[in-house]
């Protein structure tokens, strides 16, 4: 009887906070990731180190050292927030005076601008993960998608109604072309997708440099690695007009469409069902008559196509051209997409939230670099740290003494090379 009563009453907030449910674990992983970032700032910023050294050299008070530490870490995280979400002071100014809305909205607009392609690419990676496929090649696929889309966008000329869809479709096709290689190789030879896709990433970077330095695609009159500029009819225009100063653009709607498509695909379509069954239990999938070879090729086409779309959305909404540094290094949305998909547990909605978070970290990291001089790469370190903690939920639960629920005790199924 008491059991029945216990299940009927709503658990207290404290019980829910320590429950160890996936969402709680994710929140605690965020905290841990930010702590790792703070630790890195503390151990590598000269002023902070000097303050602590002062403890032993000039017998300054520990309070001073702590103050310097908190000042530096606080400034970094504060600019990260104000640079990516909203600056309260500027917001208050805008509300009271009615002026300066552009400045106030710029951070959130930038975050949404970067989130749109990230959502698209991560959805592709997430669909692959749900099928049991690790698509590390999303970045290379996005690069090829960007190239294909930019070629169509800059070298063909037609009205917007035709040009924009065609440009986006070219991006999808480019991503599919790059994705088909690991898909076909895995289906017909069993070559592990991890090595093949990583090697293809490097092939794609080389190809990118080749095309942006070759005559038909290079910006005429330029010696640098810059492509032609895409026609306005092929660009994703800013939502509030080009004169608004806000880069927030129609790419967001593309991202929303992709999320809806992904939800429908995974939950309602029969192909998506085949994908998920293959991911959950390959042998069962085979036994029930699912053509595993076709699934392998198709999942790479879907995942690659979405990555390619992300590449062209990125190019069509921000730079309107591509250069030799397109998606390289910290700008590589294909790599961020892997961490986003893991953080969002490969579900479309989870991916939306994680994309917004990681886009904010990236945009905020840029603001942090500009104002405090702490390099932007810190944001990527924090992102990876968060995902490491999310990938090991038991560790997070041990650190925060959360209860381990029976359902979450089930571990990831790891499998080897072949």
């Amino acid at each position: 009887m008491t059991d029945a009563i216990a299940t009927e009453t709503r658990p207290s907030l404290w019980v829910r906070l320590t429950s160890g449910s996936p969402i709680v674990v994710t929140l605690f992983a965020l905290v841990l990731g930010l702590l790792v970032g703070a630790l890195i700032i503390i151990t590598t910023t000269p002023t902070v180190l000097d303050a602590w050294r002062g403890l032993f050299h000039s017998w300054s008070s520990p309070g001073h050292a702590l103050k310097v530490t908190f000042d530096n870490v606080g400034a970094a995280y504060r600019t990260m927030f104000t640079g990516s979400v909203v600056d309260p002071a500027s917001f208050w100014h805008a509300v009271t005076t009615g002026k300066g809305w552009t400045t106030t909205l710029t951070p959130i607009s930038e975050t949404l601008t970067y989130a749109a392609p990230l959502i698209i690419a991560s959805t592709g990676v997430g669909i692959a993960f749900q099928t049991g496929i690790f698509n590390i090649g999303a970045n290379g696929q996005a690069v090829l998608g960007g190239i294909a889309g930019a070629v169509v966008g800059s070298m063909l000329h037609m009205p917007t109604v035709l040009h924009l869809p065609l440009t986006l479709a070219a991006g999808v096709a480019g991503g599919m072309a790059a994705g088909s290689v690991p898909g076909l190789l895995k289906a017909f030879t069993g070559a592990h997708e991890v090595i093949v896709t990583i090697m293809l990433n490097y092939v794609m970077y080389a190809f990118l440099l080749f095309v942006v330095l070759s005559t038909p695609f290079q910006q005429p009159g330029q010696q640098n690695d810059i492509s032609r500029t895409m026609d306005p009819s092929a660009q994703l225009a800013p939502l509030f007009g080009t004169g608004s100063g806000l880069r927030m653009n129609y790419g967001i709607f593309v991202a929303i469409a992709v999320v809806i498509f992904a939800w429908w695909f995974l939950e309602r379509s029969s192909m998506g069902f085949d994908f998920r069954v293959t991911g959950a239990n390959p042998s069962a999938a085979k036994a029930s008559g699912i053509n595993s070879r076709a699934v392998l090729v198709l999942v790479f086409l879907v995942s690659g196509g979405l990555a390619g779309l992300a590449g062209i959305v990125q190019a069509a909404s921000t730079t309107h051209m591509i250069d030799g540094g397109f998606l390289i290094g910290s700008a590589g949305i294909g790599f961020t997409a892997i961490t986003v998909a893991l953080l969002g547990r490969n579900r479309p909605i989870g991916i939306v939230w994680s994309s917004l978070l990681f886009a904010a970290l990236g945009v905020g990291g840029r603001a942090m670099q500009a104002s405090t001089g702490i390099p932007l790469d810190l944001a990527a370190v924090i992102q990876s740290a968060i995902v490491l903690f999310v990938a090991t939920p038991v560790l997070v639960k041990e650190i925060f003494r959360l209860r381990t629920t029976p359902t979450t005790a089930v571990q990831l199924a790891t499998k080897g090379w072949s």
Partner: protein
Amino acid sequence: MTVVSTTPASGVAMLAPSARTRVIAVIMAVIGVFTVLVFGLGSVAGAHSSLTFNPVNLSVAAPWHVGTLTLLTRWTNVVLGIVMMSIGAEVFIRKPRRGVMLRFGGVAILFLFALLLWAARSPGPSQVSFVNLTAILIGSSAVAMVLVFGSLSGVMCERSGVVNIAIEGQFVGGAFVGSVIASTTHNFIYAAMGGAVIGGVLGLLLAFLSLRYLSDQIIVGVVLVTMIGSLSSYLNLQLLTPFPQLNTGNLAPNLAIPLLSKIPVIGPVFFNQTGFFYLMLVLVGTVSFALFKTRYGLHVRAVGEHPQAAASVGINVVRVRYINVVLGGAIAGVGGVAFMASQGQFQPGYTSGLGYIALAAMIFGRWRPSGAVVASVIFGLSVYLSYILVSYQVPVSIYILQMFPYIITITVVAGLIGRVRPPAADGLPYHHD
């Protein structure tokens, strides 16, 4: 809470190995035909290419003069192409069970070499009209050395059943720490020790997450690589840019072995190398001996093949895996220092996928140290040849040339899987309760 499961290989019907052998044979023959037509018959009848054998470092020049070998470009390349075609024909007809990809690697190297001879032909468009074979071998040996370190690390980890995909990250970490230590102490032994420590720590992290918490090893490895990559780039801006004295030029000195280093061609390649090269040779022997001739190695292989059986005879599976992953990480860390010492300093992102090529070399070498050496030599040659082709005026974009090593790696991996057998428990989590 299944976030991910990687690779649903069971249940995938693959192309039969014999059919794939024929595909590879046809590829080799086509490369041969291309070589004959373009590099052979495509060059002017009188054109010739010069091969020189100068050691880069003149202190180890042979006591007698080694002249220049002048070859007629057209007929040399025709012969090379015919050799490739006959290898293809041999594979097509005989369908050998082993060594197909070895032959493919050989054909790839011959192809790049034929391209090089053709590029250096005189009269021809190139300013540089000779090919220094000794220099090529020395340069390739530096790349191969790094790959051997990486694949030895892979062998150590995977023989015990843990996939170490973080080799690239251990390279980066080793290169970073190695550069800082070498710049401050001017001592490469300390640098190597620092690299081993950082690699070992990364290995420990991988082992901790994948053995204690049974996380997906491939995902943890890839995320570690991303993390180390961005951390190194962060530290590069935060520490090395303001304090350039922490990242000064540091080429490891060559230690010439008396007399032996004076042998033409072979001497400068094998006996006038950095300490890292000799260390690599020692490690290959040590790992090979430890894995296949000692009691501990038997334990390792048992753990990698069938952990439950190993545990039932009293082997501590988790401890063996911890030890091997940490040692493997340390080896890769030293490999990172070796790479830094051959490049001179640390730069973010400059390992450009070598860690993954090393993994491919490990697969190519069938999870054996000796095989890893052969594979690393092939990959090292292909990386270096496509790299130096840039200095000749080849009518192909240098960026297309840069793709070659990666494409060769993909082809090799695609041709090998199913033909080679990884340790049975490779990458599988082990529940020890």
